[in-house]
């Protein structure tokens, strides 16, 4: 399941719901992304997450479907927030449940890596020198490239 929302989420509640009643789940791998107050050398006050409504959901659904095609998952969940977020706030949750931990771990890593390079979100950081659009990082591209082959329609 994927969700794009302004509101915060409760990781404990989301994880409990994800595996509730499923006795085949042996492992649950989870990633929670938070707003840091240090990006590079500058202090960040807050950030605003912009997205492309429609395409965001489409890409997230495709990324999730790709993960479920590659790994035997019992359940998966991606929640991504938008709007203005303060340091310490949650941005994103990725969770994958599987019979075996390795599948859960790999799928979770894949989802966050691909999400970071394919889902149309942009971060505007508020720093001491004003607001600045965050630049894409080569390390994110490299992380995503580990999971190649890419989808044929992903032109990035």
């Amino acid at each position, binding site marked *: 399941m994927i969700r794009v929302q302004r509101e915060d989420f409760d990781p404990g509640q989301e994880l409990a719901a994800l595996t509730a009643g499923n006795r085949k789940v042996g492992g649950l791998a989870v990633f929670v992304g938070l707003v840091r107050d240090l990006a590079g050398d500058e202090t960040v006050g807050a950030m605003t997450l912009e997205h492309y409504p429609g395409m965001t959901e489409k890409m997230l659904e495709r990324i999730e479907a790709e993960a479920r095609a590659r790994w035997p998952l019992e359940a998966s969940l991606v929640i991504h927030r938008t709007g203005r977020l303060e340091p310490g706030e949650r941005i994103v949750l990725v969770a994958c449940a599987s019979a075996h931990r390795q599948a859960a771990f790999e799928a979770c890593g894949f989802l966050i890596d691909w999400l970071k390079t394919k889902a149309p979100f*942009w971060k505007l950081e508020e720093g001491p020198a004003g607001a600045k*659009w965050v*630049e894409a990082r080569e390390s994110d591209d490299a992380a995503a490239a580990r999971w190649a082959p890419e989808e044929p329609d992903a032109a990035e």
Partner: protein
Amino acid sequence: MKLLYFAWLRAKTGVAVEEVTPPGEVATVGDLLAWLKGRGPGYAEALADLQVVRVAVNQEYADPDQPVGPDDEVALFPPVTGG
């Protein structure tokens, strides 16, 4: 054709959404970008470095040689930075 601009492409063009009717010789994403550049200084600045411009046609990532037509939704945005 519906055009959408996100993040600093929106800030530089000063436009979030617009309806345009490019001339007939604009057949591909690449043609469209070249044509948009000539529409004013904001566009020229936004599209100065196409290495950092991503294009989606009907919400799918598109290469410069992909055809575009009057009924398409074309979005221009920087490399994504979510997660």
